[in-house]
């Protein structure tokens, strides 16, 4: 039994009942909202946040003309989406820079949330921004924590300041001093993971804050957190008045309800998200994309951006133009496929593709099918690649023979290509609608 479906599937389901109905009764609305609530809870949104969210959307819907108007279900969906986006913060907020250098960023969070890796990722991003970064090893408790930061420092080509296992308050003070005298404009403090209820260790963080007056205090949280997320975020925020949040491990298949809850509870912006173990695997947090991911639209925008990163800018422009005037052909598709390797493989991208997210599991796809697709395209003539509509039965047979695949596979590819073209066009023209 598929008891634990993803949030997007659940919400899709909730609204499939009222899909395309114009005019909803209050009762029907409440019924749909009950399912949304269930979906939110199964996605680890804190029960209180879910409750308030549902109340707010429900009363907004009732108070407006939505229920009477045409296409009311679409409008309710839009309302849910808009509220979600608003709740998660309205736009990407960058790290603040201090007037009197160096800027100091203090990382904190529970054990195992991914602080140390995140230090390296931020260092890389900041270095790209022409900052001279110093990493300070303030985790004196976890075995080999300093060593881990040193290795990450090496990998990100960042200097690491460490004093062994002495008082972390002294380490952080000295690190900032060292930065000042040695021309570093940015210091990142890697503190030890700790429980929010550990009085002694929370006091340590308060003392570090007092000693170095960080430009930002960033709470690093695991995106898989459950109901406890609000307690954690609230306590760190109360004790330290954090300035922002960083979500990690978003490359997993969690729906990330914690993100919603934390934002709702402490009102601080989520600044970055970690999406993998490599130091490049970091992205700015985009509230709207997160909302659309949760709602099952797939993270189209991220996908496009990644594609642009992987292909050259010039190439991307060319493709965008081709999509717009419908001249995107199989030759271009082949280029894309070859580019996907650079984007980190197919599986990462699956979840971002609208209509596919949650429906296709990693099991269904392997890189071999990828190679087969390529083989099929390679067996086509240039004309066929350019005008796939001319590929009729006899050509299909020839292509399947040439590529060592079956006619069905060739058919499938051609169908998928057509669908993809359609989707791309919708996305690029901004006409893309919810897939439910």
């Amino acid at each position, binding site marked *: 039994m598929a*008891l*634990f479906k993803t949030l997007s599937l659940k919400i899709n389901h909730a609204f499939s009942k009222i899909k395309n109905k114009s005019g909803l009764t209050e009762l029907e609305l409440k019924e749909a909202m009950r399912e949304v609530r*269930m979906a939110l*809870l*199964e996605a*680890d949104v*804190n*029960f*209180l946040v879910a*409750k*308030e969210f549902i109340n*707010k959307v429900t009363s907004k819907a009732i108070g407006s003309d939505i229920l009477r108007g045409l296409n009311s279900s679409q409008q309710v969906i839009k309302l849910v989406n808009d509220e979600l986006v608003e*709740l998660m913060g309205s736009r990407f907020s960058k790290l603040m820079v201090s007037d009197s250098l160096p800027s100091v960023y203090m990382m904190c969070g*529970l*054990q*195992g*949330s*991914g602080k*140390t890796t995140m230090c390296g990722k931020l260092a890389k991003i900041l270095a790209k921004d022409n900052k001279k970064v110093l990493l300070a090893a303030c985790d004196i*408790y*976890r*075995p*080999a*924590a300093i*060593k*881990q930061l040193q*290795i*990450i420092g090496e*990998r990100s080509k960042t200097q690491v300041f460490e004093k062994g296992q002495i008082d972390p308050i002294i380490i952080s003070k000295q690190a900032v001093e060292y930065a000042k005298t040695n021309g570093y404009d940015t210091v990142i403090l890697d503190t030890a993971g700790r*429980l*929010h*209820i550990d009085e002694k260790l929370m006091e340590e963080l308060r003392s570090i804050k007092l000693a170095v007056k960080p430009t930002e205090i960033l709470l690093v949280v*695991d995106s*898989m*957190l*459950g*109901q*406890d*997320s*609000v*307690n*954690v975020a*609230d*306590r760190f925020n109360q004790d330290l008045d954090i300035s922002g949040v960083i979500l990690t*491990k978003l*490359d*997993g*298949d*969690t*729906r990330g*309800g*914690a993100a919603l809850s934390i934002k*709702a*509870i402490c*009102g601080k912006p989520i600044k970055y998200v970690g999406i993998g*173990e490599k130091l490049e695997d970091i992205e700015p947090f985009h509230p709207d994309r997160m909302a659309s991911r949760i709602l099952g639209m797939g993270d189209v925008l991220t996908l496009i951006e990644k594609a642009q990163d992987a292909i050259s800018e010039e190439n991307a422009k060319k493709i965008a133009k081709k999509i717009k005037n419908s001249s995107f052909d199989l030759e271009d598709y082949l280029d894309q496929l070859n580019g996907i390797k650079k984007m980190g493989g197919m*599986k990462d991208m699956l979840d971002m593709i609208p209509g596919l997210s949650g429906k296709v599991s*990693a*099991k269904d796809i*392997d890189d071999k099918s990828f190679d087969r697709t390529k083989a099929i395209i390679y067996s086509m003539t240039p004309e066929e690649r350019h005008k796939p509509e001319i590929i009729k039965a006899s050509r299909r047979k020839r292509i399947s023979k040439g590529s060592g695949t079956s006619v069905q596979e060739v058919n499938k590819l051609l169908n998928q290509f057509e669908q993809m073209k359609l989707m791309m066009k919708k996305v690029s023209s901004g006409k893309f609608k919810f897939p439910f």
Partner: protein
Amino acid sequence: MGFFLKLKEGLKKTRESISRKFFEAFKTKELDQKFYDALEVALISADMGYIATENILNRLRTEIPSKKISKPEEAKTLLKKILLETIDYEIPNYEFPLLILISGVNGVGKTTAVGKLAKLFVSQGKSVVIAAADTFRAAASEQLEIWAERAGVRVISHSEGSDPAAVVFDTLISAKTKGTQVIIVDTAGRLHNKKNLMEELKKINRVIDRELPNSDRRNLIVLDATTGQNAVRQVEVFNEAIEIDGIILTKLDGTAKGGVVMAIAEEQNIPVYYAGVGEGIDDLIPFDAKDFIDAILD
């Protein structure tokens, strides 16, 4: 923003412990809708998940009238019984030589659990060797070596980036020649949706199958008690890959209660073996279902 203010107010209550929420539920005078609502909040707060929670509530709704229960205290006893039935398993005794393969997603407490387990077996007079099969994460083997030293056991490690299955192979050979009784394998954290990393884990598993076909063998997944419903997926996928025998539930010293094991038990028959309750080497205790439930409810 009104929304935040409202939440803040509600939060005053949230911040109170989960046990407190159960207390609130069971202090109602009658077993009415209010009681069930309060209980729903408590069960969900403990991360039992919406579905497991509803299943539990539905059982109460039928059994409370049929058993003619009217006092909240009796309802509490019934709830405890239902919860206990869900997660109380008989764990087969260990036989030696014993191999424990530790796996799980990133940062849940695998390496710490390996150190604690080593100490546990040493204190029972067993000889122990650890395989440092996390060859991926920065300073992973250094971290493990410190734990091994604390526990007073041997550890076999290769250089960073080498094949983890090869580390395991070497450890098994060494254990065989030395007649070591307990082999514990620490592996790299991996998210269950990363196919290539799961393949790597399967490979490690196959090496053990091949080299130690007849020994007692437990594949334990480490779950972080602060994790929400995603833990259900974690167990499902790891189990599919290497057949999980049991769970180590860590970080129970925080405010999260790890109720997700209830949701897991509803879907899969996988018992919890141990509970992690701190960062010290002795902070690992054999899991006791009754104590666990009492700790959540009382």
